[in-house]
């Protein structure tokens, strides 16, 4: 084996998800058996991508992620003309994690406090929720509410 290009491109979790789902569907329709190691890994990766709090958990039902939704997100963010632009890696992480609070956004976006005003941060979270959908809160989330507040203020 020869490595021609160690990094030819970055893939979002959604693209990998889509690729695996389609490969499995195709194999099923041709009644094809794939090598055992591949079958195991494909199942494991799919399970992982469908796990909470991953945004693809209910992709099958909601179809929240699509090529159109992703370009929409990019357009909507550009239209806001924030004072700073998101880097490629940051945008990719937003797609993969779908942050629903500024606390989570702050670990993805480097130096967020300096690059974006508070209004812009909230607007960004809102745009992400509007275009990619939101997580449904789990039943026992309420008890931790106070801690989140106190930690957020202390950033």
């Amino acid at each position, binding site marked *: 084996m020869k490595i021609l*290009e160690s990094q030819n491109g970055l*893939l979002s979790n959604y693209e990998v998800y889509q690729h695996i789902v389609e490969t499995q569907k195709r194999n099923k329709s041709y009644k094809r058996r794939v*090598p055992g190691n591949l079958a195991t890994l494909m199942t494991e990766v799919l399970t*992982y991508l469908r796990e909470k709090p991953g945004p693809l958990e209910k992709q099958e039902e909601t179809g929240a992620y699509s090529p159109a939704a992703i370009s929409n997100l990019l357009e909507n963010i550009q239209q806001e003309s924030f004072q700073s632009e998101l880097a490629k890696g940051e945008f990719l992480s937003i797609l993969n994690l779908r942050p629903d*609070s500024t606390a989570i956004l702050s670990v993805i976006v480097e130096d967020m406090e300096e690059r974006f005003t508070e209004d812009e941060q909230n607007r960004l979270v809102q745009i992400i929720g509007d275009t990619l959908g939101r997580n449904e809160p789990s039943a026992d989330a309420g008890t*931790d509410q106070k801690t989140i507040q106190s930690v*957020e203020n202390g950033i």
Partner: protein
Amino acid sequence: MFILTKIADLVQIAPEDFGKQSHVAIEDNLNAKYANKVVQKIGLFVCLWDILWTSEGLIGQGDGFANVNVECRMVVFRPFKGEVVVARIASQTREGISLATDFFHDIFVPWSELPEGSEFETREGLWVWREDDQEMFYDNNEMVRFQVLSEEWHDQAPSGPLDLADQPASELLPPYKITGSMKAPGLGCAIWWEE
């Protein structure tokens, strides 16, 4: 988290696979060889993405294998430095917390990378984060977010019989290990940060 890696390889198609269509035979061959394997300094190979180019199949002397040169792209698990990734708590010790995803198990968060106020609860065998009179446990099997700090590679090429005697098989280091951090706000158990 995932990248595309372009590789060139010689694929040998066995005569019993001649019944398959060429591209199917090549795909199976590449997947059987690389899926779920770590390649040093590249990452964990997941599956074939697309085939870019193939040569004619040539049959050499001595066996009936069709030899095809292939250029293709593979999906590889290789989170970049600073990326935030979701994983599950696998086990905990005084040294830190071991994390795993369903398909990758060698992720470690040392104690120094846990938020201030974290302590190891010996009785429970769990880490706990104390903040403003609140106790929050890192429960096993809980989903957490962590940030990739660094990676380690250990080539597992077999060593000679003399070297092997010094190092028992059980102490083999993982081929690809990720060290992470859960210090910053927003990291740690996912349910702590739900709005």
